[in-house]
């Protein structure tokens, strides 16, 4: 019997083990004098990879809301932004503009999760009963309101400059930039895998079955005695809290937050990733997100070999992204790895 056979078979348990391994290896780089040297062509991969694992936590939260429960949250970026701002404002030291309280960063991260969860609770208490497309509009409008609040109250949120001087725990431990990038990717990747393990446990439990039953037919679910509003509110708040967690990680990785990081583009990216991969399947949504974010790499490399300007290329990439969304909904409504029968979209 080889060691491979003794590995647990469930997706959740495997993600748990992989996450712990990633965290340990990341900690090895961060805490010991062990150093790595990256070839310069790899930088861009590692940077996009770090952003991918942070967005991965976002897409897992969104998948809990839309994929499992059927809640159309089209303002997911607002929870990401609120988490990031709360973390930044509590932990930033000597920020150039806005408020920085200088508390230890774990406190900031916790506050980020809590702030996003509270906002999620507020949105769901008021709007969870709305029909799908109107819930999408309310969440979208919420995101726009917060965006303009962040831009306009520069005494509190630092305006367009945002909040600088957020502590970077990993950067503080590792001075060498190559090792720092690798350690960041491993630690954040490990956190994303642990998140994957947790949401997998949640949705494989009977609790997840109730969520999927709500998505399939809310009336039937209610008729078997489940309080669908309670379940929907909980799923929404969990998703919002995960997005706030991702926001806090982003602030602590980036060392600064600004409104420019939290545009509707973030929402669109995670949505397209989720739909492309296949909603209601945790690993599929991560794979879909990887494809969409991989397009950034393609366009960055293509930029070097083609004679067009960066602006033109950005436009072309977004045209492709928009058409992918259209094509997925029309020709593969369940996504690449989704189950059409389970999602109820087979025509």
């Amino acid at each position, binding site marked *: 019997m080889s060691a491979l056979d003794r590995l647990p078979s469930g997706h959740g348990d495997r993600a748990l083990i992989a996450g712990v391994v990633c965290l340990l290896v990341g900690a090895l780089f961060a805490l010991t004098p062990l150093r790595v040297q990256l070839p310069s062509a790899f930088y861009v991969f590692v940077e996009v990879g770090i952003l991918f694992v942070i967005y991965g936590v976002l897409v897992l939260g969104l998948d809990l809301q839309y994929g499992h429960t059927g809640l159309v949250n089209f303002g997911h970026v607002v929870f990401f932004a609120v988490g990031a701002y709360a973390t930044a404002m509590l932990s930033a030291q000597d920020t150039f503009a806005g408020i920085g309280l200088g508390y230890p960063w774990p406190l900031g991260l916790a506050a980020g999760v809590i702030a996003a969860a509270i906002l999620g609770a507020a949105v769901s208490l*008021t709007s969870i009963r709305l*029909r799908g497309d*109107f819930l999408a509009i*309310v969440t979208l409008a919420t995101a726009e309101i917060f965006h303009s609040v962040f831009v*306009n109250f520069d005494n509190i949120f630092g305006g367009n400059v945002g909040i600088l001087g957020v502590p970077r725990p990993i950067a503080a431990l590792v001075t060498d930039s190559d090792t720092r990038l690798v350690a960041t990717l491993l630690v954040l990747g490990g956190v994303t895998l642990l998140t994957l393990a947790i949401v997998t446990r949640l949705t494989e439990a009977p609790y997840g079955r109730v969520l999927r039953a709500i998505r399939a037919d809310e009336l039937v679910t209610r008729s078997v005695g489940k309080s669908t509003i309670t379940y929907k509110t909980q799923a929404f708040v969990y998703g919002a809290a995960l997005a706030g967690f991702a926001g806090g990680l982003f602030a602590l990785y980036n060392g600064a937050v600004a409104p420019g990081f939290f545009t509707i583009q973030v929402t*669109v990216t995670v949505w397209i990733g989720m739909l492309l991969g296949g909603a209601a399947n945790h690993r599929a949504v991560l794979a879909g997100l990887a494809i969409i974010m991989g397009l950034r790499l393609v366009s960055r490399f293509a930029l070097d070999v083609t004679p067009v300007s960066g602006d033109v290329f950005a436009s072309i990439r977004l045209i492709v992204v928009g058409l992918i*969304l259209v094509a997925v909904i029309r020709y593969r409504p369940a996504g690449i790895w989704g189950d059409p029968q389970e999602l109820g979209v087979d025509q």
Partner: protein
Amino acid sequence: MGLLQELVFGLVTGSYIAIAAIGFTLIYGIVNMINFAYGEYISLGAFIGFLAANTLPGPLPVAVVAAMIGGGVVSIVLARGFFTPINQTGPVPMLLTSIGLGIALRNGIRLVGGRSARYFETDTSTFRFDALPDIPIGPVDLLGGFFVTSEHLIVIGSAAAVFAAVHLLLTRTDVGIAMRAMGDDESLARVRGIDTQLIRDSVWILAGVLAGLAGVLMAVQTNVSADTGYSHILQILSAAILGGAGSPYGAILGAYVIGLVLAVSTAFLPSSMTGLSSAMAFVILIAVLLVKPSGIAGTEVREA
């Protein structure tokens, strides 16, 4: 500036938002989808109008007609290509499709038209009313002198003409009556022998024509760029929902409420926070959905 001046601006904003909101709400009521790409129809209309104004020899009205025809053609072609094939899938997939289409169109326009904003050159005459006394209350002047330009009058006048035309269309013509019947109950309309696909197509054309007109008016007031329409889409949406999604008359009312609230909040907010005035529209939107989701006149949008 006095409050009266802001009210004039509010009326102008309300007017072009109203024209667009009628088209938006008709699509909502009859095709049963929130069309998030509608802002791009408006931008396309603005660009077609701008091209026509610079290449055709005629005056501004020629450009307006060109934009309206162009808007109608764009709308029906896009609807046939993207929305009609997935008509049966329900509101959420159609909303998502329109978001994807909107991104693609917006960046397509940016690719072809470039990033810089262009401006319509129009001859403007200004009518000033300076004799009114100031009534300052705190930092806000409740009356004060104001001015109206001929552009303002054109926008408000076109809006009034559109309201009359849409009203006549919906109440006096067979197509309009069929549209209202379909908005009410599609199956019953089909039972009565209405060709629902034909009506849907005519709604798409009408909405495109209105988007073209709104595009030129917005462009005259602001500028022509890839974001001309997109920067207004949430206000249009708020106006339509405020009025009761699907109701053109409600949309008109909603648009003027939005326009006036934007203008008044600009007057009352401290100058460092005028950027917040656009958020006011969304605050109204959320408030309406919470308090009276059916809007001023319209149907229930809550499920449970």
